[in-house]
């Protein structure tokens, strides 16, 4: 029996069409992330299956891709550059951003709280090339004057700049993690006579532990992947740093600085894309770990 309850009109088909359309939009994110991996791999593949020597790649400090007679592709010094800058940045950013997050989430109230949140959000919006410029033209002379050193484009400079850059984002994520702790926890502790700081240290921080871990991880990922600021502020010289006053060169900055001068399909071009694969995989693992850590929170 066919009745009008079986008739499908324009609205019915429109609804189906939209469902399909938005589904395509939804999976586009997956398509793009796979696309990024495939296209970067595609350009880097000729190097990976060609001249790449894993031992040299990860074990040598000699990065001489433009040498005509004997090019070498060791990224150890570049990794050391990235690691030292990111490490120093975290030294700066982790305590202060967690401190700021705790103040904003647990102590500040009303307008102060809103104003601080807006300020942090605005700080996060400053473009990385502007940060690089700040490192180059403000921090550089400042470091030379303060520490009486010949150059100010160093691990210290890039690390501080990167720390100031990563801090607002980490503050925001950490504050979200603290806010996610139910108020009932705080009230229960306060009802037992705990003071505000006891509540924070003994109840809120342990409960938000995973979220705070995720904030730190995402900060690390951010520092690791930052390009322009590090390129402009770190001095860009291949070096295993022994002090904060050494210049270094980062993985990301190497790609940005050299890609423009390479011929498409050359070994140099290929190795820069191979660096891209490496960066992609490392940030992928960092983001995945952060996600798993946060998921751990939800399952509790």
């Amino acid at each position, binding site marked *: *029996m066919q*009745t*009008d*309850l*079986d*008739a*499908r*009109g324009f*609205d*019915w088909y429109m609804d189906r069409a939209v469902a399909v359309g938005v589904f395509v939009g939804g999976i586009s994110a997956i398509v793009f992330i796979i696309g990024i991996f495939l296209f970067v791999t595609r350009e880097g593949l000729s190097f990976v299956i060609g001249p790449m020597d894993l031992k040299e790649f990860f074990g040598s400090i000699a990065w001489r891709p433009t040498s005509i007679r004997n090019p070498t592709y060791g990224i150890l010094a570049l990794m050391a550059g990235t690691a030292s800058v990111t490490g120093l940045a975290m030294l700066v950013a982790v305590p202060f951003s967690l401190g700021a997050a705790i103040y904003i989430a647990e102590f500040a109230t009303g307008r102060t709280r809103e104003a601080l949140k807006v300020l942090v959000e605005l700080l996060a919006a400053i473009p990385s090339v502007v940060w690089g410029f700040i490192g180059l033209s403000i921090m550089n002379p400042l470091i030379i004057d303060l520490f009486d050193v010949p150059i100010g484009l160093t691990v210290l400079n890039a690390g501080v700049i990167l720390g100031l850059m990563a801090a607002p984002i980490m503050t925001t994520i950490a504050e979200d993690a603290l806010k996610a702790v139910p108020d009932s926890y705080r009230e229960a502790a306060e009802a037992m006579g705990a003071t505000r700081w006891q509540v924070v240290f003994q109840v809120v921080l342990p409960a938000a532990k995973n979220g705070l871990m995720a904030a730190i991880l995402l900060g690390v990922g951010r520092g690791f992947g930052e390009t322009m600021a590090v390129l402009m502020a770190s001095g860009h010289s291949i070096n295993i740093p022994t002090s904060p006053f050494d210049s270094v060169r980062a993985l990301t900055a190497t790609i940005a600085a050299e890609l423009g001068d390479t011929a498409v399909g050359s070994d140099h071009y290929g190795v820069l894309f191979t660096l891209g694969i490496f960066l992609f995989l490392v940030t992928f693992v960092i983001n995945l770990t952060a996600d798993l850590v946060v998921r751990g929170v939800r399952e509790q």
Partner: protein
Amino acid sequence: MVDAAPKLSVRDLTVRYGDFTALDRISLDVLPNEIFGIIGPANSGKTSFLRALNRMEEFQPSMKVEGKIYFNGQDITAVRNVYRLRQKVGVVFPLPVGLPMSIYENVAFGPRLAGVRKRSELDEIVERCLRRAALWDEVKDRLNALGSLLSGGQQQRLTIARALSQDPELLLLDEFSIAVDPVTTMRIEDVLRELKDEVTIILVTNLVQQARRLADRTAFFLESELVEVGVTEDLFTGPVVDQRTRDYVEGRFG
């Protein structure tokens, strides 16, 4: 009246939410143009019954429905255009929802979905439905105000007006009087008695006396099962099949 083909036939209706069985193999018939009452304590499956009639399991992934529901003889669990079905079934749930649009648009929403475009026609529908829901006098001067900012009782009557706006064949009411004051409740009850000529009404209520005032026949649900269904007055004064029915209507548990 008893001889007429049923408006609604439910056979072995089972509703589950995950492992929890909210309704267990219910079978009953609702006749055209009657007010069919459903009474029972909280969590006895009354609301799940209404949800199944409007195919609301599609909104709630955990809700699973088995069995057959025949509406005008057609099994609604297999219709190809469920939206058309819902247009013919008006529902009013205990928590009123005024949509975040003007009072006028709240009531005109359904007719517009059905393709009514003419302003004069919409004006007529809006006024008629708001009058029937006993809300017209309070809002006729501010039809452009937001429906979502009315008081709870007004939103409930707005919801009723909206449910009536599509001229439903079946009207499902779930404890509509919770958010409404007693005087307005009485007015709406009068309206329901008038509507009976055009619409078949299923009235879920936690007020046993409301079922007694309004319902032609009444079903008693208890712990996910249908205990008894019969002419309303019989549940109160006539012979009952199950003593629990009498205990409930006389208030010995609830």
